[in-house]
């Protein structure tokens, strides 16, 4: 009887097709030795949902502890999203909770993936403008500017001064509109509903101005390679002046509504703090970085499209919490109105788009009279222009931080590769270190304060 082989124990070989504890330990050990995260296969072998070997070991130890004492206190895994209204679109957060405390969280992205970067490879350089504008849908002007400046750099194309001014005006108007959306929706998340109605009133006025100049309220293709699609229409300047003159008063109104409110302070002060060096290490840019005291702004440090001509401050604060991010954005709205006023005061006469017939479409009125213009027009629309081979990166300061566009050309009429460095995507990384050990209710305030746009995260 004793000579009969005993059934294989759980850590000696494959039993019933299930991987074994020793095998699981083996893969975790290998990953730890190599100092990397776990692959999907390794996660499956270890039968544990963890991203690093340390996490996996802790999880396994916890499982063993639970087996010994089922009454033990253990974390609860909750899915926040993807349809949670306060996650700004479709972001999913796998959160591990101990009561109200967030032990760990993993953002899961990709629910809004549109394949825009890949799509650009199938469109001509001109057509791709209409795609990139749709990524970070709250700052279409920054997206298109990043793309257009990259292409202009490859082409060696000079943008007329008037076009640069028009670009600055629209970028700053876009910044105001984006910050207004941020304040309104963050207010909603924190229970301050009135501020939403106030900000959306002004945001609608900003979108109206966008409609007036570009024909589209949101996903505008106003910036073209070489300049802007059109000049300011009649009455635009007066409307815009009315808007920017009234804006500081409106910001006062928002601040009266929320800034000193005890509930607002309780929800935001000291929430989502990360030290500046950690933010820099994570690559965080934009208001989230400036709220921590780092005066990094591409408009100042690496001026593009003529920002060096304008006087403006870069607001910074020291604490780096959600309340400081709110204050930075409010100050930025005021600075943006100043920039727009300066630009309107000093905008020079000239053309709104470069005069390069090999790249820029000929003026409409020439089509009927000039055969050469018609030939250029047909060629540019059907085949498109050729861009010299090369690679270039150019970054712009979007309302959320640095949006950069990396463009590679093989000399053809279509981009070889278009890659966007999107601020929302990079800033999202800061959420995990920020939220660890904090309360779940504060997590919502942190997501809001980072101002991630999922269209930009997933692209």
């Amino acid at each position, binding site marked *: 009887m004793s000579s009969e082989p005993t059934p294989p124990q759980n850590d000696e070989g494959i039993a019933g097709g299930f991987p074994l504890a020793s095998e699981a330990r083996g893969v975790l050990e290998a990953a730890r030795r190599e100092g990397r995260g776990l692959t999907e296969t390794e996660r499956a072998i270890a039968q544990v949902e963890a991203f690093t070997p340390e996490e996996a070991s802790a999880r396994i130890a916890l499982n063993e502890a639970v087996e010994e004492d089922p009454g033990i206190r253990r974390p609860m895994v909750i899915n926040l999203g993807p349809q949670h209204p306060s996650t700004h679109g479709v972001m999913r957060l796998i959160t591990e909770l101990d009561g109200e405390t967030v032990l760990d969280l993993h953002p899961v992205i990709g629910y809004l993936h549109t394949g825009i970067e890949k799509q650009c490879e199938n469109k001509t350089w001109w057509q791709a403008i209409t795609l990139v504008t749709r990524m970070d849908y709250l700052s279409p002007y920054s997206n298109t500017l990043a793309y257009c400046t990259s292409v202009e750099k490859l082409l060696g194309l000079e943008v007329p001064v008037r076009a640069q001014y028009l670009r600055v005006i629209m970028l700053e108007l876009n910044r105001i509109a984006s910050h207004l959306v941020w304040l309104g929706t963050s207010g909603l998340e924190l229970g301050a509903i009135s501020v939403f109605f106030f900000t959306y009133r002004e945001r609608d006025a900003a979108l109206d101005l966008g409609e007036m100049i570009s024909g589209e309220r949101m996903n505008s293709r106003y910036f073209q390679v070489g300049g802007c699609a*059109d000049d300011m229409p009649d*009455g635009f300047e007066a409307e815009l002046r009315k808007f920017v003159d009234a804006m500081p008063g409106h910001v006062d109104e928002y601040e009266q509504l929320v800034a000193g409110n005890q509930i607002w302070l309780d929800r935001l002060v000291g929430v989502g703090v990360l030290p500046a060096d950690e933010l820099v290490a994570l690559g965080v840019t934009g208001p989230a970085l400036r709220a921590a005291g780092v005066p990094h702004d591409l408009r100042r440090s690496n001026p593009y499209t003529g920002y060096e001509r304008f006087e403006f401050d870069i607001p910074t604060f020291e604490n780096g919490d959600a309340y400081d991010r709110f204050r930075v954005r409010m100050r930025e709205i005021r600075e943006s109105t100043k920039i727009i006023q300066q630009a309107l005061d000093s905008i020079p006469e000239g053309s709104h788009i470069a005069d390069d017939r090999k790249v820029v479409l000929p003026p409409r009125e020439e089509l009927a009279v000039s055969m050469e213009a018609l030939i250029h027009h047909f060629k540019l629309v059907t085949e498109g222009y050729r861009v010299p081979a090369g690679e270039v990166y150019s970054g712009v300061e979007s309302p959320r931080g640095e949006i950069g566009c990396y463009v590679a050309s093989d000399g053809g009429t279509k981009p070889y590769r278009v890659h966007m460095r999107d601020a929302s995507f990079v800033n999202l990384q800061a959420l995990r270190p920020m939220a660890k050990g904090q309360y779940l209710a504060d997590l919502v305030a942190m997501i809001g304060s980072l101002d991630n746009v999922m269209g930009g995260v997933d692209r």
Partner: protein
Amino acid sequence: MSIQATLKGFGVTFKAMLTKPETIGYPEHKTPVHPRFRGRHRLWRYENGLEKCVGCSLCAAACPSDCIRVVAEENHPDERVSAGERFARIYEINMSRCIFCGYCEIACPFDAITLENEYELSEYDRPRDLIYTKSQLLMPHPKSVPNRTPEAANG
């Protein structure tokens, strides 16, 4: 301190009760649009009834979302359709794909296609209702939207 701030906040809210509402009663009152607004497409005819479109397919080439389909045919001398040599026998726009970038309008050398003011384009059925044919596109939209004038913008 914080009571004061809260009262100040309420003050803003109560003051807003005395102002004119910013909203408009939508289905009855439509927002007028600015002249550059790009809405539903329209194909145009010359005053003598001939179509401006000559079926050159430049709009289809320019379209980033490939939503335009043009099939051209030679004009018959007895029965001219367009002013040019050829005309568009089929001109379809798939409105469920269109992104209203207006590149077709830019591309057209004859101003045959423009984007008009209408923005109420919802339909119940995609293949049946949202592929606009040439006859639909040549007609003005039954519910036209006015352009925004300075008076309309304020009232």
